[in-house]
């Protein structure tokens, strides 16, 4: 089992994802955005950061990187893909996930630990019981998820909503989303559950020395699942 972590110009969490995966005992290697070969990788992570400075729109330029055509093919073949923060933004720009991410309502960058409620979903990357609350840092300026009403219905109906911003006790209130996200959506997956995008950063909470371990299952689940197949 080998994670591939894509480096786009301006990515800045790729080392953290690699560190987290290796810390948990998994193999992980970088993939340069100009490469077009994903052979040897079992799961692909698009890391956080500011690809192309987040200029024009977050993820707008990265989506055209040569590697993205391969990522799309990989995903369509059922390969697991996780986009964290900027990676999530790139996945929406690439239409691997529906919707878009707008500026946070407060117009401020936010970086803090955030309680998230795990929803019943098709996501292959996470098998925590629905209702579990995990504390994972958010760190973004454009995490305000939006999609049209029809898409939202579909997301709900298909179990594509994976994580929602909540209070520490798990209740999902209208003010719980620090960025104004529609329906408190923090993470979604595609219908099949192999493509997963989320604004919070699970890689920041795997090593107990740094802020907790609530991110561990975001890496281990997919490894187990792939091992079972």
């Amino acid at each position, binding site marked *: 089992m080998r994670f591939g972590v894509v480096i786009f110009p301006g990515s800045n969490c790729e080392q953290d994802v690699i560190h987290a995966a290796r810390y948990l005992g998994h193999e992980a290697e970088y993939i340069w955005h100009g490469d077009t070969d994903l052979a040897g990788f079992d799961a692909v992570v698009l890391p956080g950061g500011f690809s192309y400075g987040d200029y*024009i729109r977050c993820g707008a*330029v990265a989506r*055209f990187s040569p590697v993205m055509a391969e990522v799309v093919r990989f995903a369509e073949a059922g390969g697991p893909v996780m986009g964290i923060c900027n990676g999530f933004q790139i996945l929406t720009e690439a239409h691997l996930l529906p919707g878009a991410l*707008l500026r*946070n*309502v407060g*117009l401020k960058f936010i970086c803090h630990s955030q309680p998230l409620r795990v929803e019943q979903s098709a996501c292959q990357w996470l098998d925590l019981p629905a209702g579990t609350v995990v504390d994972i840092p958010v760190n973004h300026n454009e995490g305000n998820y*939006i999609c049209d009403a029809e898409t939202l219905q579909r997301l709900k109906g298909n179990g594509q909503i994976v994580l929602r911003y909540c209070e520490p006790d798990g209740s999902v209130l209208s003010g719980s989303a620090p960025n104004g996200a529609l329906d408190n959506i923090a993470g979604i997956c595609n219908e099949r559950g192999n493509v997963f995008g989320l604004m919070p950063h699970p890689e920041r909470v795997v090593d107990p020395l740094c802020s907790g371990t609530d991110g561990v299952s975001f890496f281990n689940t997919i490894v187990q699942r792939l091992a079972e197949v």
Partner: protein
Amino acid sequence: MARFDIYVTYKKGIFDPPGATAERALQNLGYEEVSSVKIGKFIQLEVVDGTSMDRVAEMCGKLLANPVIEDYRIEPVEEA
């Protein structure tokens, strides 16, 4: 050189946080006559002569705007 001005705005119904914030801020500053502010992008594009509108529209659809949330309008600009 030919020039095109491109106006990118949020689609109807999409909430625009910078616009909403500016609206409130103006009202708080005493500009009570303000009823709505929307903030989009104003892109000035310079291209070689003879570039077609279609070609510019393609650039917008691909990169300069996100059709999921944004509309765009293109205006060729007469050289001064």
